[in-house]
């Protein structure tokens, strides 16, 4: 588990990039109040996904406007999918992400 900081660090409807266990993770705060975490780099040509625009379903990369399902990470434009990371907001309003290495190694 890692605490990334207060959820209010991310403006409503935007995304910010965090480093977690050596991985780049883009965390988004949707307008419905929920949060999502996905790989931060666009598989197309490396676009910074946290700079993209979102709604409650879709994330659009700022460089060439390829779209991804913001919940599943699936590409909606026929390119590779994004990795999705489990992220939540705790009782103190902090973003919590489970350690990536831990989630990858089944215990």
């Amino acid at each position: 588990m890692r605490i990334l900081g207060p959820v209010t660090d991310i403006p409503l409807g935007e995304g910010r990039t965090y480093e977690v266990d050596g991985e780049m993770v883009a965390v988004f705060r949707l307008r419905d109040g929920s949060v999502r975490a996905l790989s931060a780099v666009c598989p197309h040509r490396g676009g910074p996904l946290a700079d993209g625009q979102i709604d409650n379903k879709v994330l659009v990369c700022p460089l060439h406007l390829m779209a991804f399902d913001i919940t599943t990470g699936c590409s909606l434009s026929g390119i590779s999918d994004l990795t999705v990371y489990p992220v939540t907001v705790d009782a103190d309003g902090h973003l919590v992400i489970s350690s990536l290495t831990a989630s990858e190694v089944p215990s």
Partner: protein
Amino acid sequence: MAPRLVVIGNGMAGARTVEEILSRGGDFDITMFGDEPYGNYNRIMLSNVLAGVEDESGIFLNDLSWYADNGITLHAGRRISRIDRFAKQVYAEDGTATPYDKLIIATGSRAFVPPIPGIHRPGRGYHQGVFAFRTLDDTRSMIRYAREHERAVVIGGGLLGLEAARGLQNHVSQVTLLHAMGHLMNTQLDAQAGAILQRSVEKLGIEVVCDAMTTEILGKHAVTGVKLSDGRVIDCDVVVVAAGIRANTEVAAASGLVVERGIVVDDQMRAQDEPDIYVVGECAQHRGETYGLVAPLWDQAKVLADHLTGRDPQAAYHGSRIATKLKVAGVDVASMGLKESDREDDETLVFSEPRKGIYKSVIIRDGRLVGATLVGDVKKVAFLMQAFDRGLALPEDRVELMFDLGGPPAEVSAAELADDAQVCNCNGVTKGTIAETVHGGCKTVSGVMDRTRAGKGCGTCKSLVAQIVEWAAGGAVEEDPKASWYVPGVPMPKPELMAAIRKYDLRSVSSVFAKLVPGGEEDAKSKMGLASLLKMMWGDRYIDERDARFINDRVHANIQRDGTFSVVPQMKGGVTTPAQLRRIAEVAEKHAVPMVKLTGGQRIDLLGIPKETLPKIWADLDMPSGYAYGKSFRTVKTCVGSDFCRFGVGDSTALGIALEERYQGIEGPGKMKLAVTGCPRNCAEAYVKDLGVVAIDGGRWELYVGGAAGAHVRKGDLLATVESPEEVITLTGRFLQYYRESANWLERTYAWVPRLGIEHIRAVVVDDAEGIAADLDAAMAASVAAYRDPWKERAEPATPGQFRTSLPLVVLPQVPVR
């Protein structure tokens, strides 16, 4: 061995017949000969290619791989010169012989070029500057030539001539249409409808001359004009001949087939007295009729395929009832059957509203529709065509034939159509085919259009296609952003959207989604367009939700391929000072800016700036933003003008600076790029700007609008000539405001101006014909007053982490080095 089928002519009829044969599982060894060096393309769309609304690549129906995939041997670019009916062989021009068991002739027509003196050059084809309009090659060379010339004359005021004239406006500044008859489209329209059409066409800026007999094409080395029988000379450098077509029957005639106006065929499309030779398309003459439209050839192709494949050897063609539509943006014309009643007991209804360019007439005989004409308003065309084609019973209230009087909603009419009713006449697609495609799982209008080609011809049936898809999907049509919506996620065209925003006082993007989208669903791809629209409408009172902005507008810089940004400070009118240059140089050095570049917009670009450095750079520069990133007012390029230039007749730099000072940063549906140039030598490229100002002798200024020299090249239209710089500034503001309020999202002025027509824009902006000039001026003044330099946001970020990097903070795993 499968029987050998040879097809002469690889145009719309030939290729379609082969498609129909293949779809019936016909087993033939097929060889096709085409005079044109291409696969098969949609000839109808050449009008759209000329008008610049369609790419060449978009009009191909079957590319070369289709022929290969279906085992068809295609000889593209090979002309057949003779048929030996006895040896059953065709001979190509190069002498090679190809044997056949069955032969299809589909050689179509060619342009008819009247023998006007000067139209040909002895031994060299057409005179330099003269073009026919029939093939892709014709269209290409016409475009290439027209682009470099100024004035065009089109000979022929029928469908093709009108489409040619409208298309040419895209390439030359002046187009004159000459028609030998008393009124336009005289084959389809009566005199009254023709006169109304003429007015609408003139409103588009096309000069029309009827009763114009061309007696000579002038010009020694290239066309310089045309001469009419009344002695009038019309100067021009391009002449397009659209005076009708002639069937290509020479090969058939020379080979001994029966030829009158076309090659004579029976009801199975078989050439007279020839058991193995068939004819389809424009070159065929059936029961005395030849056709010049595609709808009949779809019917012919089906009959012939049924007959040849044995699916229905008795299949018979009984002729087609044809309807015509004009594909000229801004002028709707549809006609079918009789244009005038010729019997006393016919019922005739006529409605005419010349001021609005509307004319409608229907002719009813024995309770059946036998003719209809619609000009200016073609909403009822689908219904009328069905009634005409199938002899349907007509509503008791005859006026319902012309108007929707609380009549049945659209879906009902889609349901009522017969399954085999042809919906798309350009591509011969029936309601049944559309319904099947939808039932097969394709539930978007655009998806169905892609698969069936319905609506992909002249486009006039698109709304009917959409209705049928809706009907067939039983309400389960998948989201299909209608072309008319302002943004894909809010189901409204711009005027309705703006009215609803005002009505409900919606001042933020999220409130628009909540109120105007069924279910309140947000749409990422609509946010930027809505943000721009709301900002324009509300100015200071706009509630600015930062997530609605595209990244460029969040950080006031242009994102680049590596995720860094570019910084372009304002440099009004392209004028700078040594102090400014020194400061830019120092900033570039201090922050190790990777590249400093002069832009095409007469200013300086600092490229490759990390997001987190932006506020520091702005602070060090202490210059206002140049807005090189937004859909907004960008630059005013100027030339040195009367202050320094020996030819300058106006102070272009001062006026350019004044314009930029006033309208800086104003957001809009698209970029707005301006220029002011000190004389018609045009060193600031004002003729190709969204708005370009040209100083002319006598202290006056010309305003050109709708010009472009980007992805699209267009010379601007002259909006007005005014006496003073103050008037330039006022008209500029009013023009830009009208554009901001009525253009579609991302529609630059080069598309918007021709869409509305310069005459209309001039009436509104210069002559205040709609009485809205004062409102436009006031709205623009409010936007000007609301301007804040966004680079002032540097002291305190507008949102947490506004300038935090989104780039990899750590080195990502690299591809291993071998």
